[in-house]
């Protein structure tokens, strides 16, 4: 939650997304999000070309006092990221070592059959009760494994791809994601995926019996 909030505040300072290595107010954006007063602010002096000839890259001076709370937002984001990375790595390692992953989380071949997935979706629509904790239904398995072993690692890696010092040591990250601006755009897309998961997860927890689910998640299952 802290990462989502601080990440959003950071995005507000520059609500434009790009693809490739570079992207700034003087280059075209993939999308510009209307989430702060910096949205299409037009506070620039006329452009000056770096080179003679047509199509030269340009520079311009910013005359607009932008919204920028990145002083605290960035530091908070990185502090929270330490907690995410450390607890996430701890969870992933213990889940693999304790057998929780192989026993409860790993979707079996049979779980991935469209009929099983569809069936588990239909039962949800019928509000058939899902008991807290394992065994998980096929949909739960797929979603949990995707979030923990795919989305979270990717969001950490795309975050690190924006760092000049980390990409100096691991230039492969830039190749992997197609540049630091691509990584930033993917970082945002993964935030949307995680946010949707969080909301869906909360809604289903409440719908299927909030008290019972919460007890199951913390102290254990009372069956």
């Amino acid at each position, binding site marked *: 939650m802290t990462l989502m909030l601080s990440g959003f505040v950071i995005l507000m300072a520059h609500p434009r997304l790009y693809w490739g290595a570079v992207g700034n107010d003087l280059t075209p954006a993939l999308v510009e999000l209307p989430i702060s007063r910096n949205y299409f602010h037009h506070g620039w002096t006329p452009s000056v070309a770096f080179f003679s000839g047509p199509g030269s890259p340009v520079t311009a001076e910013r005359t607009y006092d932008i919204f920028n709370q990145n002083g605290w937002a960035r530091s908070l984001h990185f502090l929270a990221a330490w907690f995410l990375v450390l607890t996430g790595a701890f969870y992933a390692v213990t889940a693999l070592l304790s057998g929780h992953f192989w026993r409860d989380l790993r979707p079996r071949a049979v779980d991935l059959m469209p009929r099983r997935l569809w069936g588990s979706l239909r039962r949800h629509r019928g509000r058939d009760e899902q008991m807290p904790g394992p065994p998980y239904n096929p949909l739960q398995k797929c979603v949990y494994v995707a979030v923990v072993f795919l989305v979270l690692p990717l969001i950490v890696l795309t975050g690190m791809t924006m760092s000049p010092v980390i990409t100096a040591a691991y230039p492969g990250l830039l190749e992997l994601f197609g540049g*630091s601006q691509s990584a930033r755009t993917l970082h945002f897309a993964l935030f949307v995926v995680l946010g949707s998961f969080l909301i869906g997860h909360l809604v289903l927890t409440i719908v299927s019996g909030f008290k019972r689910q919460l007890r199951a998640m913390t102290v254990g299952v009372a069956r």
Partner: protein
Amino acid sequence: MKKRELPTAYRLPITRRSLITGFVSMGGLMLGGCSKELPPTYGNLLRMGDVLTYQARRLLLPTHALVKEYDRHEISSMPATGTTNPADSAQPAFKAELGPIYERSRGNQFADWSLSVEGRVDRPGRYTLADLKRFPARTQITKHSCEEGWSSIAEWTGVTLRRVLESAGIQSSARFVNFYPYDENPDGIDMIDALHPQTILAYGMNGRDLPVSHGAPLRVRVETQMGYKSVKFLRRIVVANEFDDMGPTGLLQTGWSWYAGI
């Protein structure tokens, strides 16, 4: 000049350590937060996080890995932000006693300008632009990453900070290099980044003299950190053995991270 070894405190293993080793050393990182040569935290949780990140960089990443350099055709447009003219009293970081001096210097194409190198060096002194251009030049096409979220690619020409510091004679007690500009944005870096082969004092940009809006006559390029660490409009460099938070207008007291490698 004899090639100078890094002070022991900065001599780090160059090999890439695996993440696993990293997590094992995390305990050591936490303890490292008490060490004296680190930036102050003022008991602020966010600043403690910054120090943890800074320590992790020192421990886990190679000291002098090079950032990616680009081709000439990849040079992009680049906004000029922050102070774009230190002589303009309307700009937030305007410094009343230095603005007019900058204006005069700019009027004569910085002919009377010189960079003072002082502090923990054996031979403190002043370097004119001509002096700096007599050092072997380094040209690099690198990416500027702004903390706001944007980036740009430009070609920078200058002299490595290392060469200038070595010519002035770095003393073994030196730990930090601080940059004082004509505006109210002084800042500093540690010796690891100061001696990095791509940390340069740039007088040229995209094949021409550095434009005023990008820091004429001389700016530092710290390619391993966010753009705001690359101080523009340099007038003075001070080598220090103790951390200086630059007072109430410095990054730390205005709520910004001193270390900005991520």
